[in-house]
C-alpha cells in the first residue's frame, strides 16, 4: 500500500504536466527562504512583508488569470495594461470630473473591457489575424482613447471608492485577553480578495468545466480540436472576452490601489503580466499551464523587487534584469521538460507480451 502511494507521488512529480508548477513553487520558496536568512533581521520574515506581496501585486495577478487562459489557447494579449489603464481613466474621469456613480463607471468599464476583448477575439478567431497584431491594435486603441479623454493624471475623490480602497482585514492575535493587530500590521484588502477569488474561479473553469478543457485542447492542437468536434471559435471568443473582463477588473484594482487615473499608467504592464504567467509555468506555445502556477509566478515575480528594497543598495533596474533572467531560466526549463527526455515518446509498452 505504502509503495503504491509513493509510486503515485513519483508519478505526480515526474509528470511533466506538473513539473513546471512545482519548479515555480520550489524556486519561490528558495528565494523567500534566502530572503528570510539574509534580511530576516530587517523584518523580511514578518507576515507583513509576505502580505504586501499580495497587496502590491494584486492587479497584476488579476490580469494574469485572464492572460493564463489566453496563453493556454496559444494566443497572447498585449492590450491588458492599456485596457486596465483605460478602466482607471473611466473611473477617475467619471467620478471626479463628471460626478457619476462609481458603480456605474465600473460597470461601464467592465463592459468596455469585455467588448474590447471580444473584438480582438473576433479578429483573431474569424479573421485569422495573429493575436500579437490584433491585440497590439487593441492596445493602441485603448491607450489612444485614454489619451483622448485626458492627458493629465486625475486623482479620484469619491466616497465609495475611498471606502472600497480603505477596506482592510487585519491579521489579529490574541494577547493579554483581547484581540490586537499584530505588529507590524499585516492586512489584506479588497484587491487581494479579488485576486484570490479570481485565481480560484480560474482554476475551477480550467479544471472542472468542459469549456476549460476545450481551452487546453485548442492550445494543444487547434486543428485536432476542430475535428474532434469541439467549439473552437466559441472557446477562443470566450477566452478573449474573459481576458477583457480580467483586464478591466485589474484596472479597477489598480485604480483602488493608486486612487487615480492616468493615460500613461501601467506602461509596459503587459510584459509584467506575461512574464508572471511564464514564470508560473505557462507554455507560450499553448496547451500547458495552471492557475496555481500563475499564482506563484506572480508571487515569485513580486518577491524580487521586495528583496531589492530590503537590500537598499541595489538600484531598482536590477529588478528588471533579474526578472529577465528568471524568464530565461523558466523558458530554458520548459525546453528541457517539453523536448528533453521526460517528454520523449516512449516505446509501445504493450508490444512485448
Amino acid at each position, binding site marked *: 500500500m505504502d509503495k503504491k502511494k509513493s509510486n503515485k507521488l513519483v*508519478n505526480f512529480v515526474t*509528470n*511533466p*504536466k506538473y513539473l513546471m508548477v512545482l519548479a515555480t513553487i520550489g524556486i519561490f520558496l528558495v528565494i523567500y527562504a534566502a530572503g528570510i536568512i539574509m534580511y530576516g533581521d530587517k523584518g523580511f520574515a514578518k507576515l507583513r512583508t509576505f502580505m504586501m506581496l499580495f497587496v502590491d501585486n494584486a492587479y497584476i495577478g488579476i490580469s494574469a488569470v485572464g492572460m493564463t487562459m489566453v496563453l493556454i489557447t496559444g494566443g497572447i494579449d498585449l492590450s491588458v495594461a492599456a485596457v486596465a489603464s483605460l478602466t482607471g481613466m473611466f473611473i477617475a474621469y467619471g467620478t471626479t470630473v463628471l460626478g457619476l456613480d462609481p458603480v456605474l463607471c465600473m460597470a461601464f468599464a467592465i463592459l468596455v473591457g469585455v467588448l474590447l476583448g471580444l473584438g480582438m477575439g473576433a479578429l483573431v478567431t474569424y479573421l485569422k489575424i495573429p493575436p500579437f497584431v490584433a491585440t497590439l491594435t487593441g492596445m493602441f486603441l485603448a491607450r489612444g482613447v485614454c489619451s483622448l479623454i485626458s492627458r493629465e493624471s486625475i486623482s479620484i475623490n469619491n466616497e465609495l471608492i475611498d471606502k472600497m480602497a480603505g477596506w482592510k482585514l487585519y491579521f489579529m492575535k490574541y494577547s493579554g485577553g483581547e484581540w490586537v493587530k499584530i505588529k507590524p500590521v499585516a492586512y489584506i484588502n479588497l484587491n487581494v480578495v479579488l485576486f484570490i477569488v479570481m485565481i480560484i474561479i480560474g482554476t*475551477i473553469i480550467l*479544471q*472542472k*468545466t*468542459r469549456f476549460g*478543457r*476545450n481551452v*487546453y*485542447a485548442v*492550445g*494543444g*492542437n487547434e*486543428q*485536432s*480540436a*476542430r*475535428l*474532434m*468536434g*469541439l*467549439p473552437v471559435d466559441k472557446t477562443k471568443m470566450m477566452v478573449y472576452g474573459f481576458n477583457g473582463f480580467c483586464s478591466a477588473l485589474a484596472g479597477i484594482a489598480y485604480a483602488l490601489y493608486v486612487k487615480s487615473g492616468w493615460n500613461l499608467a501601467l506602461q509596459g504592464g503587459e510584459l509584467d503580466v506575461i512574464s508572471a504567467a511564464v514564470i508560473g509555468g505557462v507554455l507560450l506555445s*499553448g*496547451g*500547458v499551464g495552471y492557475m496555481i502556477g500563475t499564482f506563484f509566478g506572480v508571487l515569485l515575480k513580486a518577491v524580487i523587487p521586495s528583496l531589492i528594497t530590503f537590500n537598499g543598495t541595489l538600484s531598482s533596474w536590477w529588478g528588471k534584469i533579474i526578472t529577465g533572467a528568471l524568464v530565461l531560466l523558466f523558458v530554458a526549463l520548459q525546453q528541457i521538460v517539453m523536448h528533453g527526455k521526460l*517528454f*520523449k*515518446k*516512449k*516505446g*509501445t*509498452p*504493450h*508490444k512485448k507480451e
Partner: protein
Amino acid sequence: MKGIEIQFPGVKALDGVDFSLRRGEVHALLGENGAGKSTLIKCLTGVNKMDAGKIELEGKEIRPTDPKNAMDLGISTVFQEINLCDNLSVAENIFIGRQPIRRGQIDWKEINRRSQELLERFKIHIDVTRPLSQYSTAIQQMVSIARAVDVDAKVLILDEPTSSLDNEEVKRLFDVMRDLKAQGMGIIFITHFLDQVFEMSDRLTVLRNGHLIGVYNANEITKLELVSSMIGKDLDEIFDLKRAAQKPDAKMMLDADHIGVPGKVEDISFNQKQGELLGFAGLLGSGRTETAEMLFGVTKMQNGDLKVAGIPVKIGEPMDAINHKIAFCPEDRKRDGIIGDLTIRENIALALQARRGMMKPMSRKEQDELADKYIKMLSIATPDAEKKIKELSGGNQQKVILARWMATEPDLLILDEPTRGIDVGAKAEIQRLMLQMCEEGMSIIFISSELDEIIRCSNRIIVMRDGKKAGELSGENCTQADIMRIIAGEKDGETA
C-alpha cells in the same frame, strides 16, 4: 437502415457519386489519391459543403454542418492524420467535448476509469492519465480509434487507420471492428492495404477521378481485378518489375561498421555496393527510420565508423551527408519533407541550392528548367511549377521531394517509406523509378513496411528488430515468411 446516398452532380471532385452502407457491414472505400475518397468523407462529416445531392441516415435526410454535428447525428470519424491533442492526457483525449459531469463538475475519476476499460478492449495497458505525447504513434492511433468507437455511433469512418500500426495492432483493431460490426454498426473502411480490404470488408466501392467505378462484393472480386478497377491501367505493367541486375564489378558504396546512436539504434553493420538496392524491413520503431536518419546526419552518429565510397567520413548534420552525395526522403512528408508555402519550383531547387551554398544563387531560369525537367520526368500532376506544394496530393508531393533529391544527383538515395499513403499507380511509378535509378548506378536504401514491395525491389534485405540489425537476406529468393520469422525473433543471424 436504408443506407446513405450522396450525389454531387456538377462538382468535379465528386461527380454524382452514390454510396450506401448497410447496418453491420464493413464497406471498403477504395481509389487512388485524388479519387475523391477524402472528399466523400469530408462531406459525410460536414467538413466540406456539398454542392448537390443528399445524405440519408436511417431514411431521414441529414445535413451535417461540422464534425461535431455529424457526431451527434451518429457519424463518427477517425481521420488519416492523428487528430488528437497530445498535451492532454490519454483519457481526456477520449472524452473531451463529452465529459461526464457530476454535480456541475467534470468527473475525472469516471473519465479515467472508462478510458482504461475502453483501451483494455484493444489490449492496451497504459497509464491513461499521462499526456498523450508520451506514447507512440501507434498508441495514439489506437486512442483516436477508441475515441471514435466510444461515441454512440451508427456509422464509423476509418480513414487509413492501419498505416501506422504493426501487424499485431492491426489484428487487435480488426477484432474490435468485428465486435462493432456484430453490434450492428456500419463501418466505412479506407485503406491502401489490399490484403486488409479482403480480410475485413463485406463490400467494396471503388472511386476514380471523382467518379464511381463500381460496387463489388468482397468475395466476388479478385485482387487483380480490384487493382485494375482502381487505377485503370494494364495489370501487367504494374507487376512487371524486375529487380535491378547487380554488376559484379560494382564498387563498394557504403560501409557501416558498428554504427549507432545510444538509445535509438546500436551496433549496425552493413555494406552496400554501387547500383544496389538495399531494403530495410522491420516493424515500426524497430530502428529503420533511426538508421536512415543517422546515415543522413539528422541525428548525430555517435558510435562506429562509416565509409562512403571507401573513404572514412564523419556525418554530423544533413549538409555533411549532402556533400558526400547522399540524399534522403524522410518518412514524415508533412513534417520533414515539404515546405508547404513555397512553390513546386522552389521545393525542387532547395536541396541543390543548399549544397551550392547561399552565395551562389540559382537563376530563375535554371530553377524553371530544373522544375520543368522533373515535373515531366516524374509526371507530377500540376498545371505548372508555381503552385504551392501543399496544394498537391500526397503522391505528387512525394514526387516533388524525390525530384528535389534527384536534382542533387546523389550516389546514394535513402527512401524512408516513399510509398506510404499514396495510391497504387504512384506507388508502381516510384518503384519503377527506383529500379531505373539503380540500373543507372545509383545506390538506394529502401525502407518500407510492405514486405511484398521490399521483396520485389531489393537486391538484399536487412531486417531490423528493437534498434538492432536482426538479419540479412538476399532479395532473390526470400519470402515474406523468411522476413517475418526474423522479425518475430525465431531466427537470427546472417543468411546472405
